[in-house]
């Protein structure tokens, strides 16, 4: 059976790969969107944090025997706490000055974290086995669907939509949105905006840490694994609309799918298709597909 001239298993395989990549794009761009929306910081350290999540999961497993499932809980908490320290000690000094300084600081941090990881662990990738429960694949008849990849897609969707619901549907989310829109008035209502900002940054980077743990059994755990990914994720944030929460989730998944299908039908274009879409969006709708004009 063929689909537009290609065997169905090939197309479906690339759709699954696209959805898995899209899941990572969605979690990472969601974290970036939350941080940009609240702190106005373009968080270039996000890719390094994602790598740190995967590396911590690998370290916990190989050095301390901590299972994947515990890592899925512990690593985002550790990374979130690290993010809170970064925000309190460094980022908050930059809010009153030009965005460029925030970019420079987070870019510098990314290079330091990646450099230290390379110094301690080398540039080669390290393998991380998928948990027992998700080893193997489902046989769909026309293709084999790896169980772990299904888990990644489901877990990402649940985390993304839980984060969206927390921001859009809860009292805490209303405080976050109000503090983003007019922090001075939110403070005059008795809302501790300073703590909210710290927790928001912690949440944003914890999402990247969570994505890193999810990614560890799929990609090789390596100090440079976040380096190339972060550029694609920034393109997705621009396409979705800077600061748009739902936009970043939908755009992340959709562009993962577009990238997967392009890999099936025109492999040479698959590495640039997201950037072509970004350029088109910037020309036709500069505020992004879901951004406010």
């Amino acid at each position: 059976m063929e689909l537009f001239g290609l065997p169905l298993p090939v197309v479906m395989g690339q759709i699954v790969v696209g959805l898995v990549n899209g899941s990572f794009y969605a979690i990472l761009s969601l974290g970036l969107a939350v941080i940009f929306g609240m702190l106005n910081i373009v968080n270039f350290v996000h890719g390094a944090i994602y790598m740190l999540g995967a590396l911590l999961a690998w370290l916990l497993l190989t050095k301390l025997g901590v299972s994947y499932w515990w890592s899925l809980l512990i690593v985002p908490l550790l990374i979130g706490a690290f993010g809170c320290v970064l925000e309190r000690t460094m980022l908050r000094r930059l809010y009153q000055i030009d965005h460029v300084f925030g970019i420079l600081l987070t870019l510098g941090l990314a290079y330091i974290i990646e450099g230290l990881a390379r110094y301690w662990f080398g540039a080669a990738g390290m393998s991380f086995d998928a948990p027992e429960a998700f080893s193997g694949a489902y046989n769909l008849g026309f293709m084999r669907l790896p169980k772990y990849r299904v888990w990644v897609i489901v877990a990402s969707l649940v985390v993304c939509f839980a984060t969206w619901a927390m921001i859009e549907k809860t009292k805490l989310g209303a405080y976050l949105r109000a503090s983003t829109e007019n922090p001075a008035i939110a403070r005059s209502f008795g809302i501790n905006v300073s703590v909210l900002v710290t927790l928001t940054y912690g949440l944003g980077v914890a999402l990247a840490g969570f994505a890193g743990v999810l990614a560890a059994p799929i990609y090789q755990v390596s100090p440079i694994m976040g380096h190339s990914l972060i550029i694609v994720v920034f393109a997705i944030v621009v396409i979705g609309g800077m600061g748009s929460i739902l936009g970043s989730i939908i755009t992340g998944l959709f562009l993962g799918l577009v990238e997967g299908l392009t890999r099936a039908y025109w492999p040479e274009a698959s590495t640039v298709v997201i950037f072509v879409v970004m350029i088109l969006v910037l020309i036709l709708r500069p505020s992004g597909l879901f951004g406010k004009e």
Partner: protein
Amino acid sequence: MTSSPLALEVKHLQAWYGESHVLHGIDIEVRQGECVSLLGRNGAGRTSTLRAILGLTSQRSGEVRIHGRDVMSLPTHQIARLGVGYCPEERAIYASLSCEENLLLPPVLKPGGMSLDEIYDLFPNLKERRKSQGTRLSGGEQQMLAMARILRTGADILFLDEISEGLAPVIVEKLGQVIEALKQRGYTIVLVEQNFEFAADLADRLYVIEHGEVVSHLPAAEIASQQAALKELLGI
């Protein structure tokens, strides 16, 4: 009223926005249950006085006590939690929230705030528009919403900044009735106004501010006899 304890005490308050020195030593006292109006021309320093009391200016000095507590070293959110509700001049209705979400947004600071039903009794328009996006309300409705949302929190000192500005006379009259009702309920009100007639009808005392200083202070009983001098000061 003179025997009531002081709700707000401001002594030699100075404030700056960056390099700009906007308040040069404000002295104000407001007793519990009093309605005091700060009058003055545009740029005289009335709004800055409210913002400096709340710690919303970049720098301030002097002495501010709320319910007897020195608040100069407190951050804004802790000052608010002493029971201060701020209704800003620009109304600051959140565009990302509906009318009712705006109403429910400020956290409860103290017990004794109005219930949602009581607020809707006071402002029936808001009940009709409760599902509408906050910034889609008319100017008058937005002003009502900005006032209403601080009544639910239990704040007992209300800072109302230019609430009559740019509104139709019928809405201004309605807001005047609401302030009368709030006075009856024992709220302490600081009313920043440019509308002299509106403030004179409601306030127990007036302070006139000019160039970041209090230049005149008189009780309601003396307003009629001092009207000519006041109008000259206010440039009316």
